[in-house]
């Protein structure tokens, strides 16, 4: 089984076998990050450009570390310090980068579909590191890797995803992935944060946190995007926290061995209380560790020769 694609744009188009190949490969990459010398020579001479049009610490650092541990040269470009501020279009930027012959371009952009457009225009492999409210495939892969490592499987699990579903690319990618792998997904959040047609993705919908997490094997809390507060999608942070903050009070509704996940960055006391974020159910930092391995796996599987 080989990954026969040029790009990783979303979970929607990946098959179950492709997802398993990526996760199995990532499992084998975990060990490299525990060595004294955290580097293998595999991608020596390859160049990876991280093109980030949106703020990011975790994802960008994770891609950079993943590339470096495989001996690739990684270059970071963020919109605020690039020609974007001079008005260059995405396509022009990409064409110019293409002319410098990188092997992989990792892109995050606020516009859904931006990576897809680039993939059709340049010969390099494109990895989507988050496009608008559309998809964030590497996050879903690292989430699935973390769940599989802890639960031993990805099928027949009850997964609750709570928060701003409408604006969450993490939620969409995870729904595609977890449904594909055979789990049940329930989403919950204030009505203004639930997309109207979400049932078509095959998920259950609840308007209360308690209902959603009842009997859950995994709870994924989404970040409340404070920068979107002006959109008036919820009255106040305090009210949101009262209804949807995961805390000691409600976590007992879930299964005893529930996993609590969060893609970060967390707003402590808004979507998750500190004692839960730092508590025994939390696998938030495992997610970050696994993120490096998943990205190493993708870089390995996408970069090849000509034969």
């Amino acid at each position, binding site marked *: 089984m080989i990954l026969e694609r040029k790009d990783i744009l979303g979970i929607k188009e990946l098959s179950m076998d492709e997802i398993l190949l990526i996760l*199995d490969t990532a499992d*084998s990459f975990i060990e490299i990050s525990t*060595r004294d010398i955290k580097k293998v020579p*595999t991608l020596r001479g390859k160049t990876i450009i991280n093109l980030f049009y949106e703020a990011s610490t975790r994802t960008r650092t994770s891609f950079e570390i993943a590339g470096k541990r495989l001996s690739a040269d990684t270059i970071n470009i963020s919109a605020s310090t690039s020609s974007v501020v001079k008005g260059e279009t995405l396509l022009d930027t990409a064409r110019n980068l293409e002319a410098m012959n990188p092997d992989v371009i990792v892109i995050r952009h606020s516009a859904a579909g931006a990576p897809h457009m680039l993939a059709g225009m340049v010969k390099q492999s494109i990895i989507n590191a988050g496009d608008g409210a559309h998809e964030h495939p590497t996050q879903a892969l690292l989430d699935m890797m973390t769940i599989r490592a802890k639960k031993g499987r990805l099928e027949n699990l009850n997964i609750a995803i709570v928060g701003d579903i409408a604006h969450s690319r993490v939620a969409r990618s995870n729904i595609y992935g977890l449904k594909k792998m055979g789990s049940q997904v329930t989403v919950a959040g204030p009505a203004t944060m639930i997309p109207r047609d979400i049932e078509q993705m095959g998920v259950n919908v609840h308007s209360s946190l308690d209902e959603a997490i009842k009997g859950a094997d995994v709870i994924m809390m989404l970040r409340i995007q404070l920068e979107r507060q002006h959109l008036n999608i919820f009255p106040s942070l305090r009210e949101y926290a009262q209804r949807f903050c995961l805390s000691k009070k409600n976590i007992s509704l879930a299964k005893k061995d529930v996993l609590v996940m969060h893609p970060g960055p967390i707003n402590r006391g808004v979507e998750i209380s500190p004692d839960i974020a730092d508590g025994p159910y939390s696998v938030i930092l495992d997610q970050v560790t696994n993120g490096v391995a998943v990205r190493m796996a993708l870089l390995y599987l996408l970069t090849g*020769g*000509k*034969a």
Partner: protein
Amino acid sequence: MKNKNRVVMDAEAIDRSLTRVAYEILEKNKGLDDLVLIGIRTGGICLANRIQRKIAAMEGIKVPLGILDVTLYRDDLLRTNKKPRIGKTDITFSLDNRKVVLVDDVLFTGRTIRAAMDALIDFGRPRLIQLAVLIDRGHRELPIRADFVGKNLPSSLWEDVSVNLTEKDGVDEVVIEMDTEE
């Protein structure tokens, strides 16, 4: 074309060879001090396990055993689009100042062993590295030789040598297969 498979070693022959290799490892290293075995994925793992058991039966000591996947160190990796599946590397002990015996099933071009040595040196600085193989079939492309050889098996380049082992293939045998593709 007819399938011309020839069994050149059976279970007994393999077992006797491994017993001799285990004795030679002890003899050459004058005991077990600082000795570790590293099996190269996948054929080398079963053989390293068996050598470990044989040494334990002779000396009453279980020498440390690690598993190495050399895929990420291969020199042909980026020349093809066919990416081998990566297996886990599992070396839970330090290699510093250890006598490392690499174990593999077939020694052929020597490229796997080159990759394995590069990988080992990323894990530490062994005092020495030795090589034990069940079959040496010749045709080296690098200046590498084995310290312990189960059987020298001169072969032609259009033959395939397969080491089948009970743990993974259900039977112990070494088979020469004619390449009937062309």
